[in-house]
């Protein structure tokens, strides 16, 4: 084991930091090891899950309704443009300086970052449902609510989950800088090299990157799982697409 880690050089030392406790750079305290990482990881997941759930509760019902009635083009484009342009660090610093430190503020920042992709994807997902399909449903006598529940929502789900995936990855990534607001997530070893040293920075980075990739992968699977069979058959699957199986439409090849 240790020989393998030695071959990996700095990365090996980073992994060792995750696996075994050691004395801190400044001395006196024990740092690293599975116990401390688990504590940081639990905080990291707590703020992330809370933020994504709150953001979903706030953004999805509203944009489902806007998508259903077909109003909100402006809202959908404006939130996504503004959401991209505001740096996460600036938003966090804004909350730190104006409101204060702590869990509530970190979660608020993460919620604000998660909302734009959710609004955009839900709205776009609802709007790109084939109008003929909706008309057919209405012709069969479905009420507005039934159309949303039985027709539009199932067809929009893959796109909504695409947005959810981006929101989740953004939130988990940004939770890394939460220690600036005194919330000790997995970013703690990265942001306090005085205590954790370069080894801690690399180790924690390996862990954060692995967790984000795992979440990205899980949401990709989830996105595929919620894609209705009909969409899979026609290959019309979501515009943004499950990232690991890009929808390709066959065209006649001209020679």
């Amino acid at each position, binding site marked *: 084991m240790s020989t393998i880690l030695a071959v990996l050089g700095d990365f090996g030392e980073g992994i060792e930091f995750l696996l075994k406790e050691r004395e801190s750079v400044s001395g006196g305290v024990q740092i690293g090891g599975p116990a401390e990482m688990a504590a940081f990881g639990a905080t990291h997941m707590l703020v992330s899950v809370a933020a994504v759930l709150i953001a979903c509760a706030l953004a999805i019902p509203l944009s489902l309704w806007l998508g259903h009635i077909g109003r909100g083009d402006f809202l959908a484009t404006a939130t996504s443009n503004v959401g991209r342009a505001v*740096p996460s660090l600036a*938003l966090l610093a804004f909350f730190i300086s104006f409101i204060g430190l702590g869990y509530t503020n970190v979660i608020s920042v993460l919620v604000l970052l998660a909302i734009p992709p959710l609004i955009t994807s839900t709205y776009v997902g609802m709007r790109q449902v084939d109008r003929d399909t909706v008309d057919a449903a209405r012709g069969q006598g479905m009420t507005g609510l039934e159309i949303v529940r039985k027709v539009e929502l199932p067809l929009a789900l893959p796109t909504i989950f695409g947005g959810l995936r981006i929101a989740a990855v953004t939130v988990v990534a940004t939770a890394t800088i939460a220690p600036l607001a005194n919330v000790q997530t997995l970013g703690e070893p990265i942001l306090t090299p005085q205590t954790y040293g370069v080894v801690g920075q690399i180790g924690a980075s390996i862990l954060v990157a692995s967790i984000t990739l795992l979440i990205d992968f899980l949401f990709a699977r989830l996105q595929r799982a919620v894609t209705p069979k009909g969409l899979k058959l026609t290959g019309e699957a979501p515009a943004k697409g499950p990232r690991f199986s890009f929808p390709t439409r066959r065209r006649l090849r001209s020679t």
Partner: protein
Amino acid sequence: MSRFVLAQLKIEKPGGSGSCVADNDFCPEWIAENLDRYWTPLLEHLFLTIVPVVIGFAIAMGLAVLAHRRRWLTGPIVTVTGIFFAIPSVAAFFLLQPITGLGYTTAIVALVSYTLLIIFRNITNGLRNVPAETRDAAVGQGLTDRQLLTRVELPMAVPEIMAGLRIATSTTVGLAALAVFAGAGGLGSEILTDRYFKSNVVVAGGLAVLLAAVLDLALLGLQRLLTPWQRARA
């Protein structure tokens, strides 16, 4: 590395001695007096945005043309760039640290890797959405594969390519604020150093948003220049 530690240890008292600054209120006077100290970080931020987007565009264009010829490459390219896209930039800086050290290069490499998926996907979508009849007409006129690409497909894909560039640019402005953790400066370094000082946070954050807006407008203007036929239609 050294710069990062310095940023952490530097306890910088906000300039000026007015009670507004001492009370940490929002101080327009302080901002007016100290605006010039944001000039260098703003320029650094501009470079940290433009350089990665230009390099990312060049790489993504190469990959997209390759994937356009060999369709089966699309999947693997999307998977790999998707992995780059998902890795948090702060983690990416320290994963690159053993290889490139900390500093400008590290920040650029990480930011480039982040733009690839966005730009690649938009170029391939743009190329794919060229109507089959248009392509047939071009082939019927005797255009070779290369001419088809440069004279028909790429020009027709310009709106989607530019959309990708705009998304990539505003995303990079936001991420470049994190480049301070790689020791590459930018507006993020101003934000981080005096993050408890309201006026500073508002100015530095506001400048970043402003930069994103200006760059977005510039790209929009460029798109109009590149697609005169769309203006004629509208």
